[in-house]
């Protein structure tokens, strides 16, 4: 569905991405793994339209596209949850979900419609947040991640990108977020899951793509690959088999 080919991105002298390829299909969770500074977040930002690549080709559903801005990404059906969640503590769940994309009715806001939609999305995710009017400040880290994921679902996206969604979560919160990721796949979305927790990745991913120093360094079916094989690709102890495309 979403296909990236030969993506380059440098920050001055720092080469963050070099000739990176990535594909995501509907009903699929692709994990993007790699050591710190491997270029994972940079790639997420390219997909999200926050950074524009220096070179490379992006296709959505077979058609070449340019993702020049976050709004364009959203219009193409790509939704991203960044590592820094960008939620407002003083606002409640509904307000956070609809921030910048409020539903209107006449000249005012359609609070009722927004609440209904918020409940519906949280239910689809089997979320445990009891009230959509809870201020974000009182939610746990796991529930905040849930709100951030729920927010991506508003525009009925085709691809959801999650950057380190389980970092700094407790086991129970991680369980919730991993369950949400399974829900996203069951709802038919393509998911790009960025993480360096190999257990979480192997639990929910269909495919694992390794980045190392800004380059592809291996692609594995998640059900068949061992923990050690992935780690070897991350550290560079193993090289990808020479397959082009």
């Amino acid at each position, binding site marked *: 569905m979403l296909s990236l080919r030969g993506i380059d991105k440098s920050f001055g002298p720092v080469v963050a991405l070099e000739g990176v390829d990535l594909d995501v299909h509907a009903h699929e969770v692709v994990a993007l793994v790699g050591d710190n500074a491997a270029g994972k977040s940079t790639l997420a930002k390219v997909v999200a339209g926050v950074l524009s690549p220096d070179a490379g080709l992006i296709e959505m559903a077979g058609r070449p596209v340019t993702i020049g801005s976050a709004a364009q990404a959203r219009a193409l059906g790509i939704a991203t949850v960044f590592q820094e969640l960008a939620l407002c503590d003083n606002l409640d769940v509904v307000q956070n979900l609809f921030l910048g994309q409020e539903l209107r009715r006449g000249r005012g806001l359609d609070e009722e419609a927004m609440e209904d939609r918020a409940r519906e999305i949280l239910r689809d995710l089997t979320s445990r947040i*009891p009230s959509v009017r809870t201020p974000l400040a*009182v939610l746990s880290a796991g529930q905040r991640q849930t709100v951030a994921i729920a927010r991506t679902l508003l525009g009925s996206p085709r691809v959801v990108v999650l950057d380190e969604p389980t970092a700094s979560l*407790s086991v*129970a919160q991680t*369980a919730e977020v991993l369950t949400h*990721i399974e829900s996203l796949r069951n709802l038919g979305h393509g998911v790009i899951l960025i993480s360096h927790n190999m257990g979480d990745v192997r*639990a929910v991913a269909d495919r694992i793509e390794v980045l190392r120093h800004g380059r592809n360094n291996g692609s594995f079916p998640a059900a068949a690959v061992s923990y050690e094989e992935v780690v070897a690709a991350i550290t560079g102890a193993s090289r990808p088999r020479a397959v082009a495309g």
Partner: protein
Amino acid sequence: MRRGNTTPGTPTSLREANRGRIVDAVKRFGGLTQVELAAATGLSTATVSTIVRELLDAGVVETHATSRSGRRAVKVTMARRLGLVAGVEVGPRALRVALGDLTLSVVADQTMPLPSDHRSDTTLDRAALLVVDLLDRVGAELDELLAIGLAMPGPVDSATGEVTVRGVLRGWDDLHVGQVLSKRLARPVHVDKDANLAALAEHDLGAAREHHDSVYVRVGHTTSAGLVLGDRLHRGYAGTAGEIGHVQVDPAGPVCRCGNRGCLDTVVGAQALLGSLRSSHGDLTLRDLIAHAGEGDPGCRRVVADAGRAVGEVVAGLVTVLNPQVVVVGGELARTGDVLLDPLRTAILTHAIPGRLAPVEVVPAALGDRAEVLGALALARQQTDVQHAHLLRHGHGDDALSGTGSGAGSGPRSGAGLGEGDDVGHPGTQRADGGAHESEAS
């Protein structure tokens, strides 16, 4: 339900409906403050407060102080009658944890996807942490937890929880799973295989509720069965009763992980099914296979249907020997519905001894993928009942025990408790006394 004999629209029926909404919300979220309850149900805080007071008086709910995520709050939870039990299911790709009270209610639950070949130490750590988190979610302390039932994906030695058929979970052989989890939580842990516990749950609460003799067939990553005979779980001398995955179906077939040759699992186990699709469909997971079969993919449907027939032929033998009233079909592949069930049923009816008086019924499981964890809760309750039988006869009406009592599975060898069980009898006993009055009003 209770609403049946009141007229819709009258104040009474409205109050009943609002009560129902509040109870449903409390069950769904485990524990909620009154403000959260108002938001979750759309009722005013005044209405919530009135109804919560009524439910408290009736012993249906309780309030508990918690300090979840750093905040102090008073949460409304379902009444726990005498204490809580936990059910844990360790599966090949998921961990499921539920908390229940000594009635049949589940007060909180959580699932966690697991990687393939997950490690025993990490997974049991996670199980322990999830139990603690669920307790916290309903405002309970660890000492309110009377026992834990644990479902494992293979036959286990009931004394230690060791999986007795090798290779069921890679890296879990030789591990005394019950003792390991028991050390982590300092509570007694009772272990049995998933198919037995699912059979128990379907007998107590599900598709075999009306029957004394039932066979539960679990078709998933591997195939096994749980046998309930005369309302009791039949585990066999060493706990391997019902291991139909290791019935030989092809004397010249491939060698099975158990060491024998041509076992049913070498033909219908996940590896075999996915292997037969590899050249046509590429690398699939069991979940993909189930999804594609559901969407009508002919190759995937064919593979599931053939598996149904092969399983049915083996189950036919069981039906002839044991003469159950019902065969309940569950496990991951049962999610494909009739794709699996129809050929499985046909094979049973074709090959089992024809029962002219009452042919065996072959029905889908009623509890779906929650059967195992509900069975684990039932096992924990039973073992607690055994320990506290005298007390329960005393201070407690029969309602709280309906369906979990001395019925199915409480045979002498059924999930016999671990050594630690005796040590923790006392806290449970004290709580049982304290909680006894709550049952009167319910």
